[in-house]
């Protein structure tokens, strides 16, 4: 029976495996790549910095999305993983090791071990209790980092020299823009492929009902741990990138609010979708600047101490609105708009004859 309304059939395994399957999508991806490549020629360094920040946030959000969106393991400690990465780098820099060729693998190792440490309790704890465990982990990581910072001589943080590999120095807005966008794209590719492979299906099965997942032969313990380790390794690496980009690491940058921001990203974007994580990361990163711009346009000269709570409040309000009215997030809105155009002038998909 031919499906109604469909004119596109996949006729080979290659076509089924392809990430970018139609000609329109190929053109769109090519245009996006060209745009990202050429952006530094047209955009100001401020815009480039914004895109870099969004890309860095997207790496963290994609990692959290695998853990929370796909595997259904709730983490309130995402900032702790970031801090672990940044402070591992700082500790190595303090001992004179500044090369990213050493710090990145070391960070990945520390992140992985931390993920394992948080993941093992997740085998027993569920839902709220797990979230509390990750929250406590976050505070313990910050405590260790704070002790480190205090031992280092009462200064406010650690200075990180620019990343240098064999004579090449990563420095300046444009260089970091390319580095972070490429890193985000690599993580995005990995996330999309993980989601549609065996691991992704196993995670979603565990998320939806772990008993059923176990009964169809999924090793629940192994895949839960894998989700934690993958998420924490990627996030810790993002922390290292953050440290190198800022050139400065301090405990104050990794408060509980950062963890809330990452959760907000995947919720505003749309839980369980890679596109949602990227959209949410961009949204949450750009929101303060949009509000800055709006305030500057509407009420020039407003006092600074009004702008900060206004940003903070707008963030909270948006997060609440999405949670209450649009749990599917930006991706849900996008899908609804797309379906509306697909189906117009009809409102519903046709009923199939059985």
């Amino acid at each position, binding site marked *: 029976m031919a499906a109604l309304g469909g004119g596109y059939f996949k006729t080979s395994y290659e076509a089924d495996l392809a990430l970018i399957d139609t000609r329109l999508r190929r053109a769109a991806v090519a245009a996006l790549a060209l745009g990202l490549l050429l952006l530094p020629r047209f955009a100001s360094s401020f815009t480039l910095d914004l895109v870099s920040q969004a890309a860095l946030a997207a790496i963290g959000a994609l990692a959290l999305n695998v853990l929370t969106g796909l595997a259904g393991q*709730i983490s309130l400690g995402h900032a702790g993983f970031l801090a672990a990465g940044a402070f591992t780098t700082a500790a190595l820099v303090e001992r004179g090791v500044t090369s990213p060729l050493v710090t990145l693998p070391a960070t990945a190792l520390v992140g992985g071990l931390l993920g394992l440490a948080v993941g093992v*309790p997740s*085998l*027993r*704890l*569920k*839902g*709220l*209790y797990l*979230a*509390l*465990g990750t*929250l*406590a*982990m976050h*505070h*313990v990581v*910050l*405590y260790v980092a*704070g*002790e480190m910072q*205090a031992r280092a001589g009462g200064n406010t943080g650690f200075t990180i020299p620019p990343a240098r590999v064999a004579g090449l120095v990563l420095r300046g807005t444009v260089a970091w823009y390319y580095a972070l966008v490429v890193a985000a794209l690599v993580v995005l590719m990995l996330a999309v492929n993980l989601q549609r492979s065996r691991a992704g299906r196993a995670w979603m099965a565990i998320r939806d009902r*772990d008993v059923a997942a*176990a009964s169809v032969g999924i090793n*629940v*313990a192994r895949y*839960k741990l894998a989700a934690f380790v993958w998420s924490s390794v990627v996030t810790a690496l993002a922390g290292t990138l953050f440290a190198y980009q800022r050139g400065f690491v301090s405990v104050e940058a990794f408060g*509980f609010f950062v963890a*809330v921001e990452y*959760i907000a990203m995947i*919720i505003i974007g749309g839980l369980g979708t890679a596109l949602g994580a990227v959209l949410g990361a961009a949204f949450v990163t750009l929101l303060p600047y949009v509000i800055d711009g709006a305030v500057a346009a509407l009420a020039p000269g407003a006092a600074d*101490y*009004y702008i*900060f*709570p*206004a940003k*903070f*409040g707008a*963030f*909270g*309000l948006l*997060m*609440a609105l999405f*949670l*209450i009215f649009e*749990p599917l997030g930006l991706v849900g809105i996008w899908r609804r708009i797309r379906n509306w155009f697909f189906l117009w002038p009809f409102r519903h998909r046709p009923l199939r004859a059985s």
Partner: protein
Amino acid sequence: MLQALATTLVVASLYALLGAGYVLVYRSSRVLNLAQGDLLTLGGYFLFAVAAAFPGAPAVSLPLAALLSALTGVLVYVVLMRPMAGHPVFAAVLVTVTLGILLRAAIVLVFTDRTRHPLQNLGLANPPRPLPGGAVVSTFDLVMIGTAAALFVALFVFLKLSPLGIQMRAAGEDALLASQRGINFHGVFALSWALAAFAGGLAGIIYSSNVRLEPSLDVLGLRAFAVALVGGLDSLAGVIPAAILVAAVEVMSIRYGNPLLSDVSPFLCLLVMLLVRPWGLFGTREELERV
């Protein structure tokens, strides 16, 4: 040593007030209210505002501030939490996180983030009181202990004996069944939010009179929430021993460790509890399993 004991009792009373708020909301709706710390701050700022409006009249401003806190609880339930009925519990927990953000933003918008001392307008003094044995506590320290004790007695009596309290326990056990027996569970849930905000507000009123008032006080809430878990999230009676335990660990880690360690000590208690006995000292053993 006696001083350490007295300090432990004072800190434990603060944690017990906040912990009662967590437990009340958790029992009724299985939601963990991560905005409890901001409800504390809000109580302090209510006192600050009311005391500025009625200077020198503590008999008016103290009850009025507590009443405003309780009303905020009702408002929070009606506006934010009731729409989350039927959503996943974690979404509701995140809504309480956003509630904390919103409350904090509103506080900074209205009062700025300067440190305040509501006691100045209240017209009360806070003289130190030497206790037998050489320990010294402030007057409001004693008020904190007395309030916590009174609130717990009142809550136990209310929940055990009054019809409304019994309805509250019934709705907490099974909201569907309770509603079929004619219990207005939305009203009961709103009441539990009001009580939680009231307890948090009381803690904020006393703490801000005793020490200082600033928006960053909400960290107290996150720490007290270790207390709620150590005692068992659904056990009001468990809050008291848990508060004393966590406060004792905290005071000890200040004496023998450093302030950074004492900041993290409630979370260490929480982690140990999660590993050993996740349902807490007196909580109901929930469906926890090994994979």
